[in-house]
């Protein structure tokens, strides 16, 4: 089982749309895939038309009184399941802190029993730097970091890479990709080109800023499902090919 996490300290950079589309493409390739919507806003759950609710809330999951397995919902798509968001996830930091020894490894421990059931797990993380994100980084094999091509985003990537490098033992691979790229903006073009040339961990495929991606919230489905021939769907497909090639 390989665990991917879409992570960025900033919100609104395309984490959820990437998680939803990449998980969909993984499942479409025949891999048994789970997407865990860790964001209390429940955007990924909404996009799959699943109610953002877990019986017993985040507390039951973190304490283990409810197995992750029991909270999983099937999506409309073959091989793709969802562990929905719950509003109580907003307190997940506190729950993890109360979870006993090595609180930064709790999510990794919870996910372990799912190894026989899934080939790929995607964690869609809330934007923050917190105990939740630290847990995610310890659990993930690959951190997928969407970057809006701005100087500040590049700085954030550097900080994240440095943070992960300081981990003892398991360190996730950091794979950044450009998101919400507007080809009409010169700065976007320059930063995209320069950073891809300078950093080996940056994917060659950018995800453009397109209205069809915004339409996901209207269609409530991955763009690759409702507009499979669109430029956006092709971009996600190319990005997934790039990422899945390395695993």
């Amino acid at each position, binding site marked *: 089982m390989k665990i991917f996490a879409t992570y960025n300290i900033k919100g609104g950079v395309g984490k959820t749309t990437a998680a939803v589309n990449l998980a969909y493409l993984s499942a479409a390739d025949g891999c048994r895939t789970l997407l865990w919507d860790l964001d209390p806003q429940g955007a990924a759950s909404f996009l*799959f*038309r*699943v*109610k953002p609710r877990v019986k017993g809330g985040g507390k039951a999951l973190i304490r283990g009184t409810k197995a992750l397995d029991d*909270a*999983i*919902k*099937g*999506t*409309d798509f*073959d091989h793709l*399941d969802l562990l929905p968001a719950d509003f109580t996830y907003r307190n997940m930091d506190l729950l993890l802190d109360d979870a006993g020894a090595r609180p930064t490894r709790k999510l990794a421990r919870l996910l372990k029993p799912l190894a026989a059931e899934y080939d790929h797990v995607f964690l869609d993380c809330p934007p923050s730097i917190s105990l939740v994100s630290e847990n995610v980084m310890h659990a993930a094999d690959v951190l997928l970091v969407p970057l809006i091509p701005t100087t500040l985003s590049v700085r954030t990537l550097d900080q994240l890479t440095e943070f992960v490098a300081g981990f003892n033992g398991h360190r996730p691979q950091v794979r950044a990709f450009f998101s919400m790229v507007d080809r009409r903006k010169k700065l976007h073009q320059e930063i995209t080109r320069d950073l891809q040339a300078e950093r080996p961990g940056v994917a060659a495929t950018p995800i453009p800023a397109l209205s069809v991606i915004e339409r996901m919230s209207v269609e*409530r489905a991955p763009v690759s499902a409702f507009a499979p021939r669109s430029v956006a769907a092709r971009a996600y497909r190319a990005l997934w090919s790039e990422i899945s090639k390395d695993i």
Partner: protein
Amino acid sequence: MTAANLREFVADTPAEEDSTLAAAHSALSQAFTVMEEPGAAGCGTCRRTWLDTFDWRLYKAGLTLEFEQTRRGGRLLLSKADGTPQAEQSVTRWPRRPGLAEDLPDGPVRDRILVLTSPRALLPIVKAVSTVSVTRLLNVDGKTVARLVTERVTVTAPPGNIAADTTAELPPRLAVTEVRGYPGQARRAVALLAGVPGVSHASQGLFTAALTALGRHPADYTSGVDAEITAAMPAPVAVARLLLRLLDTMELNVPGVLRDIDTEFLHDFRVAVRRTRSAIKLLGQVLPADLAGHYKTEFKWLGDVTTPIRDLDVHLLGFDAMTEQLVAASPADLEPLRAFLARRRAREFRRLAAALRGPRFRAITQDWRKALLELRDVDGPRRRRPTAAELALSTTGRSFRRIVAQGGAITPASPPESLHDLRKRAKELRYLLEFFAPLHDPVAYRKVVSDLKQLQDCLGEFQDDEVQRHEISELADAMLAERAAPAATLLAMGEIAANLAVGQAEARAEFAARFGRFAGPAGRERVRVLLEGRP
């Protein structure tokens, strides 16, 4: 009924298919938005073949084996009778002709079925072509919370089967499948479907339903006698029923013999012939005298024409076990013998096929059946005595007493022929017991048969070893005459013959104890209970 098939439904008749399905959709739309899902997994045409041996060995072991054809070959699925998967194996193709499990490539299905099915071939029992469509059931959020799978199935019995080439269309089958995390919605869909007129819970799995539509049922072939006779039935009627049942067995096995599917078709055929001959001999007094006399000769002929090939089959089936016993010689030394046996078998098979396709065999089966049916069905004044029970009592008792007398006279100095003769008498008693099994108390029957079987095994071992030893010697002569016998092969055959002689001596040493158990006071008492306790 399991939870799985509680979710499966079947329309009552194929003719009203469209209106029934429309009613089902209408019922479901009370709670869900019902939407076709054209590209769903499992949609489209599905070709499946269920396989088993002719004598249903997998079914009797609680298993079903299904071959699902896909674009690039197919896969074999082994399940329990309730549908629980047991093993799965990809195969590039399934041979057109029935094959032996040992011919399958290595894999989990082969491992599970090899011992169970050997030496019988896996025969396609039913072929099904299904057209599957999937309908999504959506909740108020437009989320798929369950699916309705509709399957329209046409089934065929492939050649080589009972009911071969029959085709039937099954009433459409509907199944509600659950989406993970939404069990309540699936239950709701099931409840709605259960209320649709013309739709019922599926009481049979697809395989069983297909068999029913083809006029068959699982395990509808057995090589046993199991004729429908009663104690009060006039003896000629009971004997005619027995003999008709045996004739059915012969005829059911002929296609398999002629297609040379596996060796056991001929074996079952020969057992039915032997039983028929014994019945004519032991019970023939209740048949018209000319009938018994004529068919005694005819069935002897049939037994004789099938003997050479069966003997060769026995050698070939036991070949690997035989080579494993070699100590001095190498298994490879015997390979020329295997090749020689195979060549002989091919020649003998042509002779056998010609006999079974010829006029004499046709006349036997047709005229014999006609005569037996007349005997069974003709109305009018008929002697009511003896009854089947009286015939069973007199013949079984006489047969037992004869064995006791003959066996009691055998001493360590008696010639082998005395044991061979006793073996024939024991076989006759066994057949009588089987013929009249429905008239006996089952517990008393099992006890006597168990004693007799032990005696028969010992006598069989003794005689088979001797016969095989003579055959090895004859085969050596024949191979020499055809210059097909290297010296190493002859030496290995000599070692085999020596092993057979050892086995025969051991069987002889065991005879007294086995006979004592069968014919001693306890054995006699068991036979008395059997005969006096019959209804």
